[in-house]
């Protein structure tokens, strides 16, 4: 145990509602659902529509670009992996297609220079069974 480098806690790829989202990340596709009955953009992914409870959902692919809605720089964390990452930025990103997702901002020297409203795009952190969507300013 002592020589094991702590790693990012990964999603459960078999969780029923979100399994398809994570399956698509293997191809570096950032997916979201659209309801063909009422037009609602559903996110986080589910088997039903949050506008009408219907099940007529179609997967669409985001272009991976969006806007920083808000963020915080975490300076204290107890999780074995994240305590090695501090300080790091956690953020809400509004994708151009509508979904708001929680992520980490990467690729910045000093996360204190981040600004709400700035443009960000997805960068994939590669793992064996799936890939993790992080975002960087561009």
């Amino acid at each position, binding site marked *: 145990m002592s020589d094991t480098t702590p790693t*990012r*806690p*990964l*999603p*459960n790829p078999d*969780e*029923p*509602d*979100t399994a398809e*989202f*994570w399956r698509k990340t293997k191809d570096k596709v950032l997916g979201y659902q659209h309801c063909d009955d009422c037009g609602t*953009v559903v*996110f*986080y*992914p*589910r088997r039903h529509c949050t506008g009408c409870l219907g099940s007529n959902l179609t997967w669409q692919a985001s272009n991976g670009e969006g806007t920083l*809605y*808000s*963020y*915080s*720089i*975490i*300076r*204290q*964390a*107890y*999780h074995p*992996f*994240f305590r090695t*990452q501090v300080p*790091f930025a*956690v*953020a*809400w990103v*509004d994708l151009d297609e*509508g*979904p*708001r*997702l*929680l*992520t*980490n901002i990467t690729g910045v020297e000093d996360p*204190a220079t981040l600004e*709400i*409203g700035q443009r960000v795009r997805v960068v994939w952190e590669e793992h064996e069974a799936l890939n*993790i969507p992080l975002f960087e300013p561009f």
Partner: protein
Amino acid sequence: MVSQAREAAIVGIHEYPSRDVEGRVSPLQIKAESAAAALADAGLALSDVDAIYDAGDGGGMSGLTIAEYFGLKPSVIDTTNVGGSSYEYHAAHAKRDIAAGKAKVALLTYGSTAHSNVQRIGAGGRAGGIHPADNMESFTGMTLIANYAMVAKRHMHEYGTTSEQLAEISVATRYHAMRNPEAVRAMEDLEFLDIRETTIADVIGSRMIADPLHLLECCMISDGGGAVVIASPEVAKNCAKPPVWILGSGEATRYPENGGDMTVSAAAQSGPQAFGEAGVSPAEMDIAMIYDSFSITVLALLEDLGFCAKGEGGAWVEGGRLRFDQAGGPALNTDGGGLSSNHPGMRGIFLLIEAARQLRGESTAQVPDARLAVAHGNGGMLGTRHCAGTVILARD
């Protein structure tokens, strides 16, 4: 002047005094001891209780478990669990059940050993992979504090709110805590450093935990618990203490939505319901018991409850307006709040308890002739998914 129907009243209260039980008692024992003390405060007996309200802190199937543990065969059980706002929901439901004739004496209890269990509530990561939302979020390492911090960051961005303004909430709360011997002992037992009244400079000079929230803007993690007894008017008139009437209540839910405004909480919906039912306005409140998990929680909730407009909270809290000995606003969290007195994980019951103390004239930071109070619980997390419970209370 208040002229509402008086269908149920808080008649008994107890706040468990210790915030660090060092493993000597269990959450269940804290609940039972608090129940006994609150019933004694009311001048009632266990056999008078016919309804129990429980947020599940005693374990699974809590309605059944607690009934047997206390030695009760209640005709009403309500196990609503919406985190720290559960007790505002319970008070509202108790009033409803009593008004419907289903019960006469309702018992609410809470017990927690979060501190003794070394629960890293604030800076811990969440377990992932069970709920689909968790499965989409826990890979980010978002801490509970960061969840709230992102509301503060957005509030600052949209409205120009400053850390100095947010610090006013911590300063006012500590000002009250230093007048409450139990709060001072709590801070000593939990090994707070340099226990004294604070300044804005102290707060913004304290260590940054998750930008823009500093250490002194974050609540403590204590042990603790308490109990509240709510009774019908017929029972209340013969109780030992003056009744604290439940005039109105509101409940609401909010969660992340595409394009949603994170600076607005569920209080924007529950507040108007509660004030409307009570027939009173925020400006009439002598006391505001607002769930202070963090400074930003109070700022956002004060706005949403209607004490000022959305975005104006920063300027509104300036100048010590929220202190018990200053005019121009309600006295905020006069027991010392979750920031400086008591936060074992679900603080909602203490909001009712301190509001009742104020309306009885028993607070350690007593507002002279306090007549009206609002207790607002926020359960869950402000920046993502939470429930709001607002309760309006009045004395005769």
